[in-house]
């Protein structure tokens, strides 16, 4: 049994699943990566699963691999979807987690604390319809097609650059007031909460 783990299970494909409490995630991951005999030095994937059954917790799943031992393990973390979804980032351990965690944040709204650059990756920064892979998100999106087109046509071209990029280009003077304010405060802007269904 891995120290700090809640319980272990075996998946249908024969892989070991280790359930870890959110508070112990980084300890367990560091242990898995650095203990001789474990040496899970390769992060295969990070993803999340939300079940159709609303009672079941949302799971964040880490697929780990030891390239040396040619062994795999799956680490799961259960989150209560009615509360704030946050997890500690494992970016310090595996830099490959960078985009993978951003994608989970983008698609499920799980915040990764300590991630160096947590922002949307597949959807654009000002996307306001919510988190597409959540079960409460309708297949065709929350806004009507007309509203989506209207927003796309009204989009400010500057919005295609992140604030960080604009600060390089010295483009702050040409920005709309609201964006310049955000830039001055050093903020990326708040991603709007999805409207209640």
């Amino acid at each position, binding site marked *: 049994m891995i120290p700090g783990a809640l319980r272990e299970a075996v998946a249908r*494909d024969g892989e070991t699943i280790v359930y870890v409490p959110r508070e112990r995630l980084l300890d367990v991951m560091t242990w898995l990566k650095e203990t001789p005999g474990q040496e899970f030095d*390769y992060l295969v994937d990070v993803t999340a699963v939300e079940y159709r059954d609303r009672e079941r917790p949302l799971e964040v799943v880490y*697929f780990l691999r030891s390239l040396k031992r040619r062994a795999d393990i799956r680490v799961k973390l259960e989150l209560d979807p009615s509360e704030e979804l946050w997890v500690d980032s494992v970016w310090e351990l595996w830099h490959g987690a960078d985009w993978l965690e951003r994608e989970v944040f983008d698609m499920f709204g799980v915040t990764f604390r300590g991630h160096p650059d947590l922002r949307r990756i*597949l959807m654009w920064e000002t996307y306001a319809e919510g988190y597409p892979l959540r079960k409460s998100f309708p297949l065709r999106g929350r806004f009507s097609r007309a509203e989506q087109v209207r927003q796309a046509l009204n989009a400010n071209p500057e919005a295609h*650059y992140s604030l960080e*990029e604009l600060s390089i280009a010295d483009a702050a003077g040409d920005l709309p007031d609201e964006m310049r304010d955000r830039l001055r405060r050093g903020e990326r802007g708040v991603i709007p909460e999805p409207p209640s269904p």
Partner: protein
Amino acid sequence: MSKRTVEMALATPGVDAEGRPTRVPLATQEPDLGGEHLLVNIGPQHPATHGVLRLVVELDGETVVRCIPHVGYLHSGFEKLGEYRHYNQIIPLTDRTDYLSPMANNVGFALAAEKLMGIDITPRCTVLRVIACEMSRIISHMVWLGTTSIDLGAFTPFLWAFQERERIYDLQEMWTGARLTTSVTRVGGLMADIPDRFVEKLREFTQTFPKTLGEIDRVLTRNAVWVGRTQNVGALTAAEATNYSLSGPMLRASGVGYDVRKDKPYLGYETYDFDVPVGEHGDVYDRYLVRLEECYQSNRILQQAVDRLPDGPINVDDPRVILPSKTRAMSDMEAMIFHFKQVMEGVKAPVGEAYIGIENPKGELGNYLVSDGTAKPVRWRIRPPSFINLSALPKMAEGHLLSDLIAINASVDIVMGEVDR
């Protein structure tokens, strides 16, 4: 950051006293721009970004200080769509992820669904799927070779590579009726057996293909321009490649010999005789060498697969999973019921989850399926190899020239359909 000195000796303004053309350096040093950084936007519509990738690059003179990739322009929500479809209905979506190797994607998904449902496929189907995977590897690497050589200024290999790719596309068309969107697998089998003359044509291909590879090898591998543009460009050490979760040729070029076909075999790959090329320096040149050698190895696997192709059914004998033939469905009551139930309700998977990684041309393609006992998955996750490989681009491009950024980006071998899904 290290600055590179650009030296050129190409201008010939005249002849000297002995009649030889005098060579004067055009520029001996990079112009000093006084520390002013420039922001350059490349893409999303740009031929050298291999799709709708957008790079925002901070430049100091011609040196890349920082590269910020923006993806998502081709986001289609396949994973979300999959939650609303039966398992077999998802297979056409997998064509459209990595559209340069559609057959391998079909196989990856079908294997995951079969693992979830506990289905063992037939021996003939296993070998045919190996053929599908290796044909995909060859066409994908041919596109990579062609486009990368164009990016670096070599036009001829592009034509040769695409010619070979066309021959495989003809084979795919023979088999499935489609060149690009093949949808060749079904859960528990294949959509069709290979047609007559397929084996003959494939054998013909495997005999002549190494000749083209040899020609490409001759024009590129020791070509001064090619070597100069690719060696020591975008190098990653083994530790870095592992840390960035790279997979496939990108990982192996850095010296980590992990190949899913060898280390976690599926489809009986352990019974084939092939080698896994491993690079040493992890630069663009080594990635080229690894991919070129993989084409030879794929060709070897294809030859072995064609030789051992057993007779027998392609589909498992389970009426709950495989549709009965049209004739039987129209004449046999029981077959008609099974047909109806499969079309209307789909194939139900037991509660649980399954992950399978397969060695796609781009890297490890993972399919992770979670089922709650219904005919539609709760979650279908694609582990997109080129998405993860691309995430190391800022690290690789740092400190290189802008033109090297193009070479590095090409060496990642991205397909935006898969990056954005």
